[in-house]
């Protein structure tokens, strides 16, 4: 057998590797869309159905909504950490956790997880509660673009114009899918809400960059296991206690910890577990895609969750398909095709020395 035929075989192997990266990006979007639909279903259970904000003043109602949202984020990440941990143990990778945490790249992933989880997700949940989504969504929807630009600057990621157009179309589409025209008042917490929403955008894009950098030297599945575990621990030790104490002290009269306890013991816990399963593996595939396809492509393919969310919502919960939804879904589909059109570009993702 000649070296020429060896080269052909190896080219085919690399192409298969690249296609697996693109498939991972698409799966991350599908699973995140499904996870959102499942977690939405949890709101049909106690205590959410009987928990009403009617008759409460605005501040108290907001405090209850914030507490519920943060509890939901904690439950999601905790269940995701467990599922991903089980998967890594089955794959014979358990010892990689300790080894990775002892290295600087592992510690970078930890910092990324705090930026993306407790800071990014909390900022998003608080921001979207305090500011109308029509104002908050354009800011949070921009995080893939921010990350893609930063990856070009810091990682020297090579992305042709076609990929950039695809990224923009995916972001525009995800914004349109969730867009709802509003004439709502800006409210008393508008400024702080916008700051928190911007924090979410910065947190998520920073997570993508730090984790991608760390995964150059670490297994993506282990990086994600660390990410979900650290995030859940930070929610449990810092975010939930501090937020609960702060909200109870400032937004009484009902102690907010009562809301927290009700959510933690909800009969919808199995639904959260299933949502954590889908969400956890969505992240597994997202991290693999970040490593195998680069930041710009992985981010664009991940935000296709908005398209999949529409499809799952239409099938399982009967959402109305508006004109914005239709245009947004088409924009995402075209963007995803442009982003993944030439897998051979993934053989060498960055300029190198």
């Amino acid at each position, binding site marked *: 057998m000649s*070296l020429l035929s060896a080269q052909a075989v190896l080219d085919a*192997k690399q192409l298969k590797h690249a296609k697996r990266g693109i498939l991972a990006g698409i799966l991350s979007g599908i699973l995140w869309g499904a996870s959102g639909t499942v977690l939405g279903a949890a709101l049909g259970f106690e205590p959410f159905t009987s928990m009403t904000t009617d008759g409460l003043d605005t501040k108290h109602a907001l405090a209850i909504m914030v507490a519920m949202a943060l509890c939901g984020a904690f439950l999601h990440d905790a269940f995701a950490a467990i599922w991903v941990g089980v998967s890594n143990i089955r794959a014979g*990778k358990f010892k*990689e956790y300790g080894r990775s945490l002892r290295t600087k790249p592992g510690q970078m992933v930890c910092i990324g997880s705090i930026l993306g989880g407790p800071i990014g997700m909390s900022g998003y949940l608080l921001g979207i509660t305090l500011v109308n989504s029509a104002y908050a969504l354009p800011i949070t929807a921009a995080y893939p673009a921010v990350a893609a630009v930063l990856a070009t600057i810091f990682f020297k990621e090579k992305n042709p114009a076609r990929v950039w157009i695809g990224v923009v179309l995916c972001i525009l589409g995800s914004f349109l899918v969730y867009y709802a025209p509003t004439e709502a008042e800006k409210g008393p917490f508008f400024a702080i809400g916008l700051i928190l929403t911007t924090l979410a955008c910065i947190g998520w894009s920073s997570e993508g960059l730090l984790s991608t950098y760390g995964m150059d030297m670490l297994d993506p599945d282990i990086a994600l296991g660390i990410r979900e575990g650290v995030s859940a621990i930070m929610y449990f030790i810092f975010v939930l206690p501090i937020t609960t104490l702060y909200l109870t002290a400032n937004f009484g009269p009902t102690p907010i910890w009562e809301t927290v306890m009700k959510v933690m013991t909800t009969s919808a816990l199995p639904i959260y577990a299933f949502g954590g399963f889908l969400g956890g593996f969505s992240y597994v595939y997202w991290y693999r895609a970040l490593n195998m396809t680069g930041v710009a492509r992985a981010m664009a393919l991940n935000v296709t969750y908005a398209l999949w969310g529409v499809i799952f919502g239409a099938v399982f919960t009967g959402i109305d398909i508006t004109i914005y939804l239709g245009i947004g879904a088409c924009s995402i589909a075209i963007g995803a095709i442009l982003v993944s059109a030439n897998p051979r570009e993934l053989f060498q*993702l960055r300029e190198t020395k």
Partner: protein
Amino acid sequence: MAVLPLRFRILHLLNQADGKPIKMTEIYKALYDEYSGEGQFSLEMMEHHLMSIKAVGLIDAVEPYFDENKEARYQYVITQTGRERTKYLPKDL
């Protein structure tokens, strides 16, 4: 006993080779004693890690060859970018 994550250890090994290309099967054999008891350690996983590290520019694939099982493989060499990343290796290695 292995102290580094497998992917980082591969980069470490290629850095120790001082610019000399190493066959994939030689990398596998060199790390066998450290990782062989673990489910993750296989030729397939090794190739996956190498392709990923190559794609991000830390190593280069050079000169293909056929191994003893007539499988096409690459030889790998560390790049300057890869060398720079070894600054993150623990100091006590």
